[in-house]
Every structure is written in C-alpha cells, then in structure tokens.
C-alpha cells in the first residue's frame, strides 16, 4: 500500500530532526574539577540600553513592589535607564544554573555554589569592571575571591553576604534553641514540625554540625567531605527526615508553613523571617547557632549569551550603588558589599554592625556555599573529596 511511503518519509524526517537537535549544542562540554574556563572575552564598551533586561535572582533581590508597595528599587532603575526588568525568581542554586543554561537571561545573582559551575560551563562571561563604576567601592575582601574570579579575571560584581539562620516559633519552642542540634536530634519534641532546605547543598549544614559535635570524623570544611564523612552526614539527615514536616525550596512555602503553625523550627533566610514577622500571625526569631552556620556570598554575573548586555551592565552597576545596595541589604537582611552602603542605611544606625559588614573574624564562622569538587575545598590539597554529583545522589537517596 502507498501508506508505507509517507510513513517512511516521516521516519526519515524525524531522524533528521533528531540529528539536528543533537548537533546544535555539541560544543558545550568542558573540563571539570580544576578547570580552565572556556575562552569568552569581556565586553569592551557600553552602548545605549536595549530597553529590557532579563534577570534571574534570589527572592528579595529584585523588588518592584510585588511583596510590599513601599519596597521598590526596580521602578527608579527603569526610569533612569529605560531598561524594563523581567524577573525570574529561583529557589535554589541548581535552578539558577539550569535557568542560565537556557541563554534567555542576561544577568544572575549567583551564590558561590553556582558561580564556578556557570563559569566552567561557559554560561557566564568575564566582567569588565571598568564598565561598573560602583565596583571601586566594593569591600576589597569580597573582590577576586575563589568563587567570583578565575586566575585573577573577575566574573562578577559582589552583591552581599549572609548566613543561613535557625528560625523558631518563640511561643511554641521553649527553651529557646541555641544549637543546630535542635533540628538534628532524633527525638525532637517538635517532630513533624521541623523544616529544612530542599537542596543537596543542605548536606553542608549537617556536615557543619558534625564538624563541631563529632571531631572524630575529622571534618575540616563542610564542603570538603570524604566518602565516610559524607555517609555520616547522610545518616544524620536520614534521622532528621523522620522529624521533618516538610522541606522548603520556595521561600513562600516556608513562610506559609510558619504562618500556619505547621513549621515551628528550621533553617531560614533572614528575608523569610522578616516576611513571617510582616504577616504578624506568629512570633518568630532567627538566630545564628553556636556552631556557626552555612551562608552565601552572592555575585551578579552576566550571561555569555546575553541579548541585553548593556542593560545588564547598567543593572549590575545600579544594584551595587551605595543607596540601592543599602536598601537591598536592609530588606533582605544581609551584609552589603558596597563600603559606602552602610552610610545610606536609614532605619537602623547599627545595621552594619549587626550584620557584621566589616567584621571579617565573624565571617570565619560562616561557611559560604561552594560547589563541592574532588579537589578538597579545605586547603589540604587532597583529591579524595566527594563531588557535587555525589551530593546530589546522596540527597535524592535521603529524600526517596
């Protein structure tokens, strides 16, 4: 029958289509581990804005009045530059990496566990800091760090840093917790009302707790775990899972669960605690436990495939300008990156002291998110550490 011919033609067409789909991206692979970033050159000069900029950011970083009418630094930016801002909020670093791989976004507020992956993947371009005048005022301690530069070439503009804190419902949780032990204990009085961050990087929180409480394991850095150390952290997280009510990766999910009383204690970002306080339904507090905590140092990076690079550069310069950086830092609850930002904080004169903006010794207790690699991050020079891929498998196993 003649029907066989169209079918054969269709098969051939499908095969052609598949071949095209396969070959279109084939240049993207790159080396892993101690890596050499793909050769991408930084932008040389700035043109007039393209009228739009597409941003991937953490919740609370790009506010146009969506959460609170009075919190808005996007509208002045659009008025000044003519660049309309399209925002995509990401809940985890993994989501950010995936979004940047699509090539549809111009700039991203990446944490230290995403930056190197983005650089190595050729997803972001080096930054010409001469095009960002406010870069001069960034704290020197944040410039050219291992998470935002490669071989002295800057790949982003530091934005601010903060710690992952322990939030609890002050009416229900007594006595007030002082240690991460209250979320890792096997027989928590708050079983079913404990929450945790839903991302493989949360393994570091367990590792940090073990580093302080079980010195025999020999953990020196929560992001440099050998296989036995990772197994110990996984075992602890499996114990924790029995106490967990639900995990959160979307910050509104934690906000709603604390508001309703379903969650009573767990890891948080300062901005979520602010939001819960703003809702006024329950009383909460966020503390830095005695063990210290994990944290993040965020960097604005520019996509290697940016379709609106000029607007993206203008955004990077705007968001770290003293007044705006102060506004973001105060709203999000983090230490600003611009040294002049502290002078611009309006509500709380002690803000920069409270958030330890310049107190480097305080930050020694905060372990910034870093992508775990076989090359141990603890400076020992060993190469037998578990990689992020192993962490992902371990996290899936904990959650299964």
């Amino acid at each position, binding site marked *: *029958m*003649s*029907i066989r*011919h*169209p*079918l054969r033609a*269709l*098969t051939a*067409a*499908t095969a052609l*289509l*598949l071949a095209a*789909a*396969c070959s279109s*991206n*084939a240049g*993207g*692979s*790159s080396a*892993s*581990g101690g*890596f050499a970033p793909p050769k991408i050159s930084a932008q040389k000069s700035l043109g007039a804005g393209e009228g739009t900029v597409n941003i991937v950011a953490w919740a609370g970083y790009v506010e146009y009045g969506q959460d609170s009418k009075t919190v808005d630094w996007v509208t002045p930016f659009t008025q000044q530059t003519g660049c309309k801002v399209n925002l995509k909020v990401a809940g985890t670093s*993994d*989501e950010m*990496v*995936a979004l940047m*791989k699509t090539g549809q976004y111009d700039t991203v507020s990446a944490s230290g566990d995403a930056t*190197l*992956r*983005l650089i*190595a*993947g050729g*997803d972001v371009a080096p930054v010409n800091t001469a095009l960002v005048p406010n870069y001069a005022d960034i704290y020197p301690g944040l410039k050219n760090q291992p998470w935002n530069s490669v071989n002295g070439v800057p790949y982003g503009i530091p934005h601010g840093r903060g710690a992952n804190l322990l939030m609890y419902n002050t009416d229900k949780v007594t006595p007030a917790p002082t240690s991460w032990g209250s979320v890792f204990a096997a027989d928590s009085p708050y079983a*079913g*009302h404990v929450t945790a961050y839903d991302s493989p990087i949360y393994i570091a929180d367990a590792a940090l707790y073990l580093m302080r409480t079980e010195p025999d394991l020999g953990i020196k850095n929560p992001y440099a775990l050998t296989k036995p150390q990772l197994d110990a952290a996984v075992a602890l997280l499996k114990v924790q*899972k029995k106490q*967990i*009510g*639900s*995990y959160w990766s979307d910050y509104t999910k934690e906000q709603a*669960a604390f508001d*309703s*009383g*379903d969650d009573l204690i767990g890891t948080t970002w300062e901005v979520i605690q602010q939001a819960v306080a703003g809702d006024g339904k329950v009383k909460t507090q966020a503390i830095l436990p005695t063990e210290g905590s994990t944290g993040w140092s965020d960097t604005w990076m520019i996509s290697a495939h940016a379709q609106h690079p000029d607007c993206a550069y203008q955004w990077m310069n705007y968001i770290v300008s003293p007044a705006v950086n102060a506004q973001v830092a105060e709203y999000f609850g983090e230490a600003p990156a611009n040294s002049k930002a502290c002078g611009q904080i309006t509500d709380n004169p002690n803000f920069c002291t409270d958030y330890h903006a310049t107190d480097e010794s305080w930050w020694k207790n905060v372990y910034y998110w870093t*992508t775990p*690699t076989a090359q141990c991050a603890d400076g020992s020079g060993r190469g037998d550490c578990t*990689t*992020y*891929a192993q962490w*992902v498998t371990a996290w*899936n*196993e904990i*959650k*299964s």
Partner: protein
Amino acid sequence: MSAPAAARTPVRRLAGVLHRHPGLRLAALLSAPMTWLALAYLGSLAVLLLSAFWTTNEFTSSIEYRWTTANFLAVLTDPQYRTVALRTLGIAVSVTLIDAVIALPMAFHIARVAGPSSRRLLLVAVLTPLWAGYLVKAYAWWVMLSHGGILDWITAPFGGHSPGFGVPAVVMVLAYLWLPYMVLPLCTAFGQLPDSLLDASADLGAGPWRTFRSVVLPLARPALIAGSVFTFSLSLGDYLTVQIVGGTTSMLGNVIASNVTLNLPLAAAVSCVPVLLIVGYLLAVRRTGALDNL
C-alpha cells in the same frame, strides 16, 4: 448542459485522480494527523528516550553527547528508585480503588435513581470542580490539612486530628482531584443500562446486591476500566500535589523534576519508568477487552 465543461476544471480532475487511486486518497487524508502524531508525539518520546543515553558533566551539569547506559543501570539497580517507583504505584492504585468505590454508587444514583432535574444538578455538581484550577484545589487541601485547619477543627471533638502532610494526604487529594474522571464514564454506562435486564434479574429472584454483581458490574466494567485509566495515569504522573501536601514524600514525578535541572539524562531514564508502567497497564486493560467497546 455545462457538465462536460465542468469535468475539465482542475478540481474535478483532482477529484477524478483521487477517485481512481484509493491509496492516494488515504494518504492525503491521514498525512496531517500522522505528521502530528509522529513528530509532536512520538518524536518527543523518541527524543526523551534518546537523551536518556547521554551523560552530563558532573561539575557544570552540561549535557555531553557520549553514549552510555549508566542512567538505565542506575534506575534499575539503585534501591532508591525502586522504593519511589513502588510508592508511586501504590499511591496510583489506592487512588484508583478509592475513586472506584466512591464513584460506583454516586454514578448509579445520578444515572438511575435521581429524577431528571436533580440528575442535571448532580452532574453539574460533579463537573464544577473541573472549572477550578488544579493548584487552587491542591492549596485548598493544604489549608484544610494544615495545623489548626478545618480537618483538625472537625475531628477535635472526637479526639482526632488532621492526618497531616504525607502519603495519606496525597492519596486523599489525588482521589478528590480525579474523581470526576471516574464518575462521568460510569454515569454514561449506567445510563445506557437497559431496564429490561434489571427487571429480568429481579424476576429471576436476584436481590439488589446479586443484580449489581452479576448484571450491572459486568456491563459497567468497560467504563470502570476507562475511568481507571484516567485516575491511574494521572496519579502516576503527578508531582505538584505531592509537593504541596506530601510533606517529605517523593513520587516519581519529584525525582524527575529534581533531576531535570542537574542531570537531564538521568531524569529521562527515570521518566521511562512511568511510561512503561502506563503501557503495561494499557496492555493489561486491552487483554480484558475493555478497549474493544471504546
């Protein structure tokens, strides 16, 4: 007459050609839907299957086009996937059974017991939830199930409390979401049931239960199976409900979703599990002959 002139127009000539070549006629008729089926539907499935054989860079999670069967091996040998697959299967089967048990009396009442006007009202009542968004309904259940929510409030006088978030909550919410898909085919089947058969059964001395078992149920079986295809496959692929009311539970959909960002090939390999489960279910259904009447 103008008929001979009309015979020479291109349209008439084409009609003539098509009339003489039935194969060509068939090809012209089928080419558009077949293209859609092959490219959009089977094509995307083929891409899915193909991408499961690739690998990712461990560090950058970029896809590398190197042929490997490691993803399938991991899915087959790693116990975590078996646990999740069995849990998902269990949830899908429970949802299907619960929906069948609720929908059978409901549909029978609507189709055979209720009067014409209340029948219309009841059908509208069954269909109304389909007008509300899926997420709205799931979040409504989140509110009901949550601490101090409506379920706590109702059960408190009896010393009970809300089941909280977990597998029971997921089964409840999914059973609620997919119930209309089970009720509607059953309603149609019961509506078409000839009165004479029920009368004959009663005349022969069968009680209501015996009539239901020996007459009604066998005739409604194709509809029951059609409904179960909906409830089973929709539950098997769900991942949002479990994220909202599942607590720490994860289903196949969550495993796929969490791997899509980091390890697309592994996610593709895991996706083959629900596809195979559905195909297996459909083949089993076909063996019962229920699909012959559709």
